[in-house]
């Protein structure tokens, strides 16, 4: 179904946006459409509300700013981590690690590095060459062979479109393009080629947003169909729902959740069609001191994960 529409259709709305300029205020001005959000953030409202970073165990993060631009971060994590197993049972192994990180944040340049006691090193770079062109890179090195990877993205931002080209190790190439078609609707397309696995894919996405709601849909030739809807009920509360369907493996998941952003805390809860409910609470105890509670209950697999943590700075 994704292969029937050729990628050239995303270029046709571009012609339509160059139609005659109208003087009446009610008519939309197709020459001055807003710049759309980046392609990877298409479903960001739904992702932020429905998929908080739940964890199991203790988490402690301390960020110390040395300068206006430079800061160091120390982080401790102790708790069981799941390892993927072929049987239905989940296997958890208690692990503990300490992570040291350094961040340099400038208006044009952002450098982030992390090193962990289990031998992993992460690095992220974001460099705004000009107003419109920016380069992003991230890399992860591990002890295990063949598990290290890196990726570079080049983003170009036009007046009412954005395009991105990415290259990763293992001969991974990808390109995406998103265009504002009306002040509320934007359409996008992407292609990727993975040399190592000899796979290529195509995807389309659309996003409709107003002040009160955001609806986004994404279809990919890898078999994934993902639709999401977020409604802002008031300035503190928003409700989100998500539907994911894989037409190759016939996997369906639907979830509904809420996101309460109050003055002292942020509470996110979600319930799933797989029988899994999660809740994530971040409470501000003091200036710069945040207390985090995370809970995830999977009734069908009988897997219970609870975590607590503290974030300083």
């Amino acid at each position: 179904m994704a292969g029937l529409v050729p990628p050239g259709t995303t270029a046709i709305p571009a012609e339509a946006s160059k139609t005659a300029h109208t003087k009446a205020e009610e008519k939309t001005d197709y020459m001055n459409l807003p710049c759309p959000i980046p392609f990877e953030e298409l479903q960001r409202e739904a992702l932020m509300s429905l998929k908080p970073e739940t964890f199991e165990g203790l988490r402690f993060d301390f960020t110390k700013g040395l300068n206006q631009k430079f800061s160091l971060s120390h982080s401790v994590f102790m708790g069981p981590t799941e390892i993927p197993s072929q049987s239905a049972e989940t296997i958890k192994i208690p692990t503990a690690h300490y992570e040291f990180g350094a961040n340099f944040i400038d208006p044009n340049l952002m450098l982030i590095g992390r090193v962990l006691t289990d031998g992993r090193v992460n690095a992220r770079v974001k460099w705004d060459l000009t107003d419109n062109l920016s380069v992003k890179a991230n890399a992860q090195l591990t002890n295990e062979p063949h598990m290290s990877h890196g990726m570079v993205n080049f983003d170009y931002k036009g007046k009412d479109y954005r395009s991105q080209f990415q290259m990763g190790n293992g001969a991974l190439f990808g390109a995406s393009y998103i265009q504002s078609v009306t002040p509320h609707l934007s359409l996008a397309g992407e292609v990727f080629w993975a040399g190592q696995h000899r796979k290529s894919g195509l995807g389309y996405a659309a996003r409709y947003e107003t002040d009160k709601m955001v609806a986004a849909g994404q279809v990919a030739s890898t078999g994934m169909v993902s639709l999401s809807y977020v409604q802002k009920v008031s300035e503190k509360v928003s409700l989100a729902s998500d539907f994911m369907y894989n037409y190759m493996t016939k996997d369906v998941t639907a979830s509904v959740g809420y996101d309460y952003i109050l003055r002292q805390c942020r509470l996110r809860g979600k319930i799933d069609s797989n029988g899994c409910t999660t809740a994530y609470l971040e409470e501000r105890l003091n200036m710069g001191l945040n207390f985090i509670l995370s809970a995830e209950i999977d009734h069908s697999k009988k897997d219970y994960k609870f975590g607590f943590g503290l974030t300083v700075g």
Partner: protein
Amino acid sequence: MAAQPKRGGVSLPERRSAAKPESNILARITSSPLVSRGKQAACDASFVSKKLLRSTGKAAWIAGTTFLILAVPLIIEMDREQQLNELELQQASLLGAPPTASVSK
């Protein structure tokens, strides 16, 4: 009556065949069709009620823990937010009164 297996695999146990009638009056009463049918009905009723209790228990557990995770923190936080609002309202009314009192002097 032998029950067909229903949806979910729940089915009543098979009926045992009736015993031979004895000459003793008590044995004759206990082996009469009325008493044996009553006994079978009681067995079935206890079996069904056990299953019902178990599934109600399971549903109550799932509903209870889900409510505990999703709703209890929400109620607590909304209550705190309301308390904070009331406190602020009180502070605003307290601080609001003195300046006008001093001006009117």
